[in-house]
């Protein structure tokens, strides 16, 4: 029962948070001005941008939005920065840690021609904005950049794993070259044992050029299985996400369910379940921040990084069927499902 109450309070779409935020800010629109928003994404447009624009349209905010794609490489940043300097937008929108760092830079970086420092920025899909040195803290960004956090707390994630089945041992396979992943793993190492679970961690071996080796994934999954783990954990790890198909296929082969903390592995690969934020809602929440900056005239440095208060429990029922791990009835009434014949 407690479990269920907890889940209901944590899960399901985050519209509440958005509505709440909306109610607070009553901007006074400057009818004649059309705001220029410049968006930079990491690997193409997502639901987040759709939610972002939908909210601004609903609110009748006059804006023009340009979106450029880094296409998975920071090397494409300088060209885009050049364009931004010409366009002189009113707001910059960045998707992901890499994008944000390469366009807006880190806190500590001084004025630089290769970065945009003088235009307000909003980031989305940055797992650890403080550790990534994008902002000073959630409450006090410390610069003209703010954004939205998108991860559920580690506690909520572990509780969700336990709500599905009383799993005993969690294994996490991660990209040791990524700072996000390392932060994530250190958090897990602290919290998972406190919640009465075992944790085993498997950093992905590197190839000769120092990059993580995707070829090693099936082997690592089997190693995790052999270590006695009964569930795999996928953090905000872009390497694993990129190789999600191979990873989850190996997991299913090893009869291991995969829990995901971000939406992408659930949407695009065969992760079994996850506690994730809805991209569309995230975009709306970012738009609330944007509206406050553009129309309300507030400064990004005064706007704390916004958090969703509710998340979506997502289950891939096909994977669950394949693994013979059907979700418990209490979850069926609150979870969202992905299945082959629907969607």
């Amino acid at each position: 029962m407690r479990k269920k109450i907890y889940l209901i309070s944590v899960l399901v779409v985050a519209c509440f948070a958005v509505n709440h935020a909306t109610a607070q800010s009553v901007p006074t629109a400057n009818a004649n001005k059309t705001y220029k928003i410049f968006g930079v994404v990491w690997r193409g447009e997502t639901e987040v941008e759709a939610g972002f624009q939908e909210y601004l349209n609903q609110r009748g905010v006059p804006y023009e939005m340009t979106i450029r794609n880094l296409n998975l490489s920071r090397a494409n940043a300088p060209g885009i920065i050049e364009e931004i300097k010409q366009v002189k937008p009113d707001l910059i929108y960045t998707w992901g840690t890499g994008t944000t760092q390469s366009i807006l830079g880190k806190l500590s970086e001084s004025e630089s021609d290769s970065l945009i420092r003088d235009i307000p920025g909003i980031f989305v899909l940055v797992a650890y904005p403080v550790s990534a040195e994008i902002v000073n803290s959630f409450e006090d960004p410390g610069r003209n950049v703010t954004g939205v956090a998108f991860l559920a707390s580690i506690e909520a994630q572990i509780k969700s794993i336990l709500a599905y089945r009383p799993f005993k041992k969690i294994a996490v396979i991660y990209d040791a070259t990524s700072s996000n992943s390392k932060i994530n793993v250190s958090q897990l190492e602290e919290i998972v044992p406190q919640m009465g679970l075992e944790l085993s961690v498997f950093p992905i071996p590197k190839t000769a050029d120092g990059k993580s080796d995707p070829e090693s994934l099936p082997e690592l999954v089997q190693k995790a299985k052999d270590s006695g783990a009964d569930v795999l954990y996928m953090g905000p790890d872009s390497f694993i996400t990129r190789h999600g198909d191979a990873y989850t296929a190996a997991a299913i082969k090893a009869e291991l369910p995969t829990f995901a903390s971000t939406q992408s592995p659930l949407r695009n690969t065969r992760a079994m379940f996850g506690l994730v934020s809805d991209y569309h809602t995230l975009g709306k929440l970012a738009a609330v921040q944007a509206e406050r900056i553009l129309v309300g005239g507030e400064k990004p440095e005064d706007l704390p990084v916004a958090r969703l208060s509710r998340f979506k429990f997502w289950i891939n029922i096909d994977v669950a069927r394949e693994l013979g791990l059907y979700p418990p009835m209490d979850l069926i009434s609150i979870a969202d499902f992905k299945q082959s014949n629907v969607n």
Partner: protein
Amino acid sequence: MNTESTKPVLDQSHINDFLTHQKGLLTRMVLLSVVVLLIGQFAVSWFALLGFEKELSPQLSQKAQAVGNAISSELAYAVGELKIPPDQLVGVDEYFENYLRSNKDIEYLAMIDASGKTLFIQGVEPEMMGTILTELNSNGLSNSNFETDVQGFLDGAFIIDETLSGTTKLHVGVTSEHIRNQFFEMIFEVLTVIAISWLVTFEFLVFYIRRRISRPIHHIRTVLAEGSRGKFANRLVERSKDEIGQLITSFNNLVQGLQIKYNDFVYEVAELKHAQIDDRISKKIVLVRDKFDERFILSGGRDVYSRHVAQIRVPLFLFIFSEELSRSFIPLFVSKYAPTEMMLSHEVLIGLPITLFMLAVMIVTPFGGGLVDRFGVRRIFLIGVAAAVLGFIGNFLTQTYYDLILFRILTGVGYSLIFVASEGWVVQNAESHNRTASTGVFVTAVFVGIVCGPPIGGMLANRIGFEATFLISACLAVISGLIVYQIFRSDEESQDTSRKRIVLRTRDMITLLKDPRFFSVLFFTAIPAKMTLAGFIAYLVPLYLTELGHNESSVGRLMMLYGLATLSCIFIFARYADQTRKYVQVIFFGGLLAGTGCIVSLFSHHIGISDTGAVVLAILTLGFGHAMIMTSQNAMILMVAGNHADTIGRATAVSAYRVIERTGMVIGPLIAVALVSQFGYHDAIAGFGVIILTLILMFMLVMTISKAEIEKDQPIYAPDS
């Protein structure tokens, strides 16, 4: 003026005759109204309840249907959409359990597959489910309408999955017990409201008839009886313009006319006498005049006011009612605001406001007597109402434990002023031949309030909350004040302005306490009675009953039993005691009954009495016991006071008694707190019993020793000074 005419104009038989007559009129009118009221109320309630039963049953099945639909659609989603084989569903038992826990009226949930196999079940044993299913299948009445009564359950079946091989179904079972419980709760509430409206109607009718009809008629009869003996001197004062008022005006005109004629006659006779030269004729004229004066008294009359002890009844009742509204929940209300981090225990913190309220009453009351003598009943009553209303409003707006206490104390001050004002009225107007019955009038008003307050207050609190109920108390108190403002004109107050102010001197106190009757009535019966009232009824009962799972309505209803028990027999004992003068015996049996009733709780479990039953028994025996004790106690104290009337003054003696008696109310909650923290709620009841029994035995002992003294104190009442 001739003095021969001072022979009694009204003898006892006249009064008795009048009283029976008055009683006849009152009784008939009240009975008639009440019977009509009752028939109407019962008829309306009956139809309402029939409707309720008709409404509730389908409502319940609607609710069960809603639950059945919700669960079956979720299961259908799992089976049909998510393609989970029914027998492989996970966590269904827990899922069912959660539903049963939040839907108390649903007895069981079961999932039966196409082959009739029970896959998951919660709420009944699988064997029982088997029997139910067999019976359902045999009569083919398996549907979702909850119409089929099987093995005491109303079963509803909902389709989860339909395949070629058959259907998987969810069975939902409800019992009719839930409907019945709700139905009884409703009946209780309706009956309570009927009983209370009956009492209130009775109060108001008696008040109105006494004031507007019986009392003026009594006065007309009295002066007419005087008239039949030739005395046409007294004028009746009546403000009302109704039929009775007109009658009185005509009567006054008659008296006035006669007096004018008499004065003319006297003048003419005097003139006639002066005109005579013959001394014999003059003497004869004087003789005739004197003879006339012997037969008729037409001058030197006074104004007779129509006032009566019972006038105080309605305003007093209304006020007591307003205060008693919070009786059933005061401890819970206090508990809500009691600070958690304190040196004192939670029990003490809850008991403290009750004790301080009583302390305020105790401290203010002695001054009250003097204030009433000085400023009059009306003014003191109104000041009391103002204080109490402020207190109620303060409690309505309560923010912290401390302002809660402050405003309770203010209400206590108001309460005691109103109490002494009313008591003063009774003392001023009581007739010596039925003093106990007069006191009864006063006590009745208080107890009707005690009966009506807690259940109505409980129902209100249950619906609008503790705080808002205080606002209603304030409104009622205001109405009570308005009535007093309207009907108690200062010119009608006792003309006895020479009354001594009550001053309680230590010397007098010692004299009184030396009187064994005074002492033992006070310490062995009066203080313990007040102590149980404040400690048991006001503190322990609401807390314990709440712990036993009763809501405010139910607590109020059970607390009402105390007042009801007292009220039902208080008149019988008052009359009995007045007629037989067996005060001591009545008090003794009252104490014995109350004490024993409480002690029963000690072994209630062994004789099959439930916890609630033990509380109810204690409440009832205390109610009956207190009725016996209170009436006789008052009479005894008035008697003792009468004996000291010359040295100390009756009012002073009574006042001394009241002051000391109220210490019982102050220590009551403290004793209850001590008993509860030592023995727990249940055995604390027995603790009260032990205290009562011990003291009543001591009372009897002292009385037996000083028995001779009682018997020589005849007559019981010293004549009014």
